[in-house]
């Protein structure tokens, strides 16, 4: 009898595990899922922020609003400012992470596939994976440079929510974030080849109030994304004491 109960228990366990495995496995996209993409506002293609003097199509962006910090984080910023570093680790080719990854003067390619929006970022050759399949944000994701993102459509606006940022990244120059930082981006077509991007940084520990900035991107249908290997020939550096310089060695060829 005991033996029989054991067998039944084992079978039930096996069945439960197998059902759970099937539930967690996303189903492959079908023709309807691909067709549904055509009905979405078309944010696909290669985009870049227009800048004065660079052949851009729009006016120069106004200087972005500064984040208003809580007293504790304002003190942290003062401490970092006082070190008087010439530059950031980006001079050593370390990518900036979110939100600065979205502020580069280099193009972004937006790709739509069923359940996902992918943003290919030319600068430092990075990729943002934004899941739009209805999954929730994980409760406690591993901290990463670009965070963990989900997206949903609010009418004609793609709303992207991102959490889980590496402590190696900052929200702005010399401005650390807490592990509670959350970033909400709203991507919307403002014209046939113009996209408005509104970015709100929410951080109850670091920010006295949410910090919102907007940026306009112009679409370049004739552009393709190029390779960008920062280490290819990086002669810039920032040393441990915060001094920036240029390695001006003779040509290597």
């Amino acid at each position, binding site marked *: 009898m005991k033996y029989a109960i054991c067998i039944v228990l084992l079978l039930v366990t096996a069945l439960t595990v197998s059902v759970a495995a099937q539930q967690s496995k996303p189903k492959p996209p079908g023709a309807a899922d691909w067709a549904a993409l055509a009905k979405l506002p078309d944010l696909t293609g290669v985009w870049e922020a227009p800048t004065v*003097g660079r052949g851009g199509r729009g006016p120069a962006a106004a200087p972005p609003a500064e984040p208003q910090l809580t007293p504790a984080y304002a003190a942290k910023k003062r401490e970092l400012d006082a070190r008087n570093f010439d530059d950031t680790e980006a001079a050593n080719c370390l990518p900036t992470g979110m939100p600065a990854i979205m502020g580069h*003067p280099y193009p972004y390619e937006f790709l739509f596939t069923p359940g996902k929006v992918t943003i290919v970022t030319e600068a430092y050759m990075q990729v943002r994976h934004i899941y739009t399949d209805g999954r929730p944000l994980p409760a406690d994701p591993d901290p990463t440079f670009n965070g963990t993102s989900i997206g949903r459509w609010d009418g004609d606006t793609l709303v992207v929510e991102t959490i889980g940022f590496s402590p190696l990244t900052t929200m702005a120059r010399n401005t650390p974030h807490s592990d509670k930082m959350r970033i909400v981006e709203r991507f919307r077509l403002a014209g046939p080849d113009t996209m408005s991007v509104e970015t709100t940084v929410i951080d109850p520990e670091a920010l006295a109030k949410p910090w919102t900035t907007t940026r306009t991107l112009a679409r370049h249908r004739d552009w393709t994304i190029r390779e960008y290997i920062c280490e290819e020939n990086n002669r810039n550096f920032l040393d441990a004491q915060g001094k920036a*310089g240029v390695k001006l060695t003779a040509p290597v060829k």
Partner: protein
Amino acid sequence: MSPIARAAGRALLVIAMIGGVVAVAWSHHAAAPVFDMNAEKTVMGVVKQVDWTNPHIWIWLEVQNASGQAETWGFEGMSPNFLARRGWTRTSLLPGMRITVTFRPLRDGKSGGMFMTGKLEDGKVLTSAGAE
């Protein structure tokens, strides 16, 4: 267009170019700590080598110093990604070409700086904002 209007247009373009340079330089490194952004110098030389590389192109010139000796000067330009979308190609500058370069000098006093414009013998002008 009157000469004054043309000159004003050119001045605006130059201001616009400088704005663009500052914006782009920020994406990888801050320009002001390494280059004197308030100074502009000019040097003439022969192209020795062009590194058409990220994150910046580097243009190496052979320049005759005051005592007639050849020196190597290095100039940091924008990225090939940026320039290729604005009229430059990797053969815009080739070894052997004579060029007059205006640049923001290196703060450490070494022979080089941030490339601003380059005037070729045939009158073609290459700028950090694009090729004319």
